[in-house]
């Protein structure tokens, strides 16, 4: 088990190094000079050169790469070109919205998908199964911004249970903050839950057909017991993979929902930073997201090993 963890950790570090090089190189080749962008069309070449020196853009690529990585390791993500404030503070502010939102949506999605997927698999071929498959098809197909607007209309405009958007901040208390995130989380969770429920169903159907489930029935287990004790855990591996992918997506991919609900999240920050050629912010946020994806993958790998003893090779 220790060997397995060490192995996964080593590959985590290697992935981070490779990713940082790729992110840095990609930003290098993006057209557009931040200094001239910041100073506007009428800036003199001298002023641009001075600003480039001030921003450290005139150093060689290697020196800038090392400086960037070294800074990140010490928590210094640099200063935003456009806002003139430390990037770490900006990102931290946005994470306070995006991370809870992603976790909230993921929790909802899992809480919906597991029972629904298991229910459909256990009632394979019945009206229940057909109904679930139809509903999840719809859940995948409906655009989430449209669903988000529907939620706003019903629950914010008509029923007035929730506000239509904005985020009061965590200082206003946990409950108001969570309340503000509820509609966006539901809007985000619906398509994810639909996908996850379908994966859960098909994976469980596969394992229900396995020989060891028949063996369990021959021991005297009821159909339900065989499903719970034997099929379910064996069906989890593909489901865990999807959950990992969904978390990464929810963290960075919520930009449309953030816009619908006026939430100051990471997605909007990246979008604004890219339009303003604020490369320091883009680099940092992209690297942060890469880090999040890799850590989530690591967690998923550990979850695999927790589920499947064949992966914990004795060392």
């Amino acid at each position, binding site marked *: 088990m220790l*060997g397995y963890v*060490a*192995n996964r950790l*080593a*590959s985590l570090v*290697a992935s981070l190094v490779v990713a940082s090089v790729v992110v840095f190189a990609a930003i290098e080749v993006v057209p557009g000079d931040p200094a001239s962008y910041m100073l506007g069309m009428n800036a003199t070449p001298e002023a641009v050169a001075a600003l480039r020196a001030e921003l450290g853009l005139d150093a060689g690529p290697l020196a800038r790469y090392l400086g960037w990585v070294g800074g990140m390791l010490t928590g210094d993500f640099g200063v935003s070109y456009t806002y003139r404030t430390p990037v770490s503070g900006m990102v931290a502010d946005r994470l306070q919205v995006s991370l809870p939102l992603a976790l909230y949506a993921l929790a909802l999605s899992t809480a919906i998908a597991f029972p629904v997927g298991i229910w459909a698999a256990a009632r394979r071929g019945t009206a229940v199964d057909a109904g679930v498959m139809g509903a999840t098809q719809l859940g995948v197909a409906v655009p989430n911004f449209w669903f988000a607007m529907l939620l706003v209309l019903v629950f914010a405009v008509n029923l007035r249970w929730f506000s239509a958007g904005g985020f009061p901040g965590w200082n206003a208390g946990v409950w108001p903050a969570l309340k503000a995130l509820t509609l966006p989380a539901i809007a985000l969770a619906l398509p994810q839950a639909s996908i996850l429920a379908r994966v859960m169903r098909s994976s469980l159907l596969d394992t229900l057909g*396995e*020989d*060891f489930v*028949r*063996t*369990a*029935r*021959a*021991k*005297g*287990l*009821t*159909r339900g*017991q065989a499903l719970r*004790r*034997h099929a379910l*855990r*064996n069906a989890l591996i593909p489901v865990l993979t999807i959950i990992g992918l969904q978390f990464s997506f929810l963290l960075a991919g919520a930009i449309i929902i953030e816009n619908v609900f006026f939430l100051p999240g990471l997605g909007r920050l990246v979008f604004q930073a890219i339009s303003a050629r604020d490369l320091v912010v883009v680099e940092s946020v992209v690297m942060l997201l890469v880090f999040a994806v890799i850590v989530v993958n690591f967690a998923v790998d550990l979850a695999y090993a927790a*589920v*499947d*003893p*064949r992966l914990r090779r004795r060392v």
Partner: protein
Amino acid sequence: MNLLAVEDLSVEIGGAPVLRRVSLALEPGETLGVIGESGSGKSMTALAIMGLLPRSARASGRALLGEVDLLARTEAEMCAIRGRDVGMIFQEPMTALNPLQTIGDQVAETVRVHRRASRAEAQGVARLTLERVGLPQARFPLDRFPHELSGGQRQRVGIAMAIALRPRLLIADEPTTALDVTTQAAILDLLRRLVAEDGMGLMLITHDLAVVAETASRVAVMTAGEVVERGATREVLRAPRHPYTRTLLAAAADRPMRLPRIARTPLLKVEGVTRDYPGARRGLFGRETPTRAVRNVSFTLHAGESLGLVGESGCGKSTLTRAVLGLDALQGGRIVLDGEEIRAGEAMARELRARIQAVFQDPYGSFDPRWRVGRLVAEPFHVVDDAPGGEARTQAVAAALEAVGLAASDAGRFIHEFSGGQRQRIAIARALIIRPKLIVLDEAVSALDVRVRAQILDLLDGLSTRYGLSYLFISHDLHVVRAVTDRVLVMRAGEIVEAGPTERVFSRPTHPYTRELLAATPVLEMAG
């Protein structure tokens, strides 16, 4: 008083009858062999007794366990009976155990489902039961997972799960079919011992007549959903009354008459061949030490000869086969086919490739299901320079199909329209079409029923005479190898331990391992 009495059991699936008025009887302490080919309904009979038929199935008749009609029980009542009064073991030990649970938990579960037992008590029963089936605590602690055990050991765990509560009836559905011959002998011994110790009734379902001959006191022969003959094993095997039983016995004893071939031209020379598998990956760059699968193997196959290669799973015969086919690079030695070296890893000359063809075990997996048979059979033409096209190609396909006993019109059909035996004929036609000198048959008849197998062996024998073919015949089945080869190699742990003329090796084996293999092979005593 019968332990089990099946009376007029009929089963329909979606309106189609799969069992017709099956009747069987079994007494305590007795072993009943149920014999039949695939699709004969023998497994369906077992599932009907267990109440585990597919949902679309409808059963009628009676299955009395003592006084209790199992077919009339509710699902909840059956759950209480399964595992407690009736235990069942299955064919595939590799997949019949839950890979995520320890063997101790899986055996203990049988106890905990039926009795109010604490975890510790159930584990105690599991420990004793595993020891009874030959998995002592010292070497096989309860916290082992199935993947840490061999196929035979897993089958022992499966048996332990079935007998933990000492059921009155044990149903074993092809329990040794997936196992090597020495493992099979050990498992059959175990079953015989358990039956004697517990006084259970054992219903042994198998396609292998020899297994029944050695294990069962009475036998029932099934075909097409019906029991066509039943009686004492000895009587049925000596004087079969039903024509089907007679064909089955004749097929099992079938031995094509091989004329001794005298050509002494070497066709395939394998000289000091060594094959390693790289070790498992450790960390990002490290690897464990490689596994030597084939060590320093040498042999010669002569033109027109049929050479057998026998050994148990893991002995390296498949690895050696892959090397001969030029699929893997060698770590030592060389392989020469018809005067030219097979350099695996490099592109093999098409002209050399065309001299060797292969037929594999799985008649279902070795064809693209979307291609028509004509295209499948013609596929090897791509290694031939002057491949016929158009009408000539159609003619060649038709000739190849006819040579293996199929019709030229079969070229237009899809592979799923054919039975297992017919598919294997198509595989042979595909190998034959470019007139190779050597055909490698890798367990080519192992998945086939006994009558079909006999037909394919006859076909192979006829083809070798007609086209002067040589065969390298790889199999774990000693009966088959004895029937169709001139010389035989016995392989164990990557090495050839014995080689010689087939009849000599089988009648006077010199190596202890060959003797062990032969002793473990069940024998079908045929009265003349």
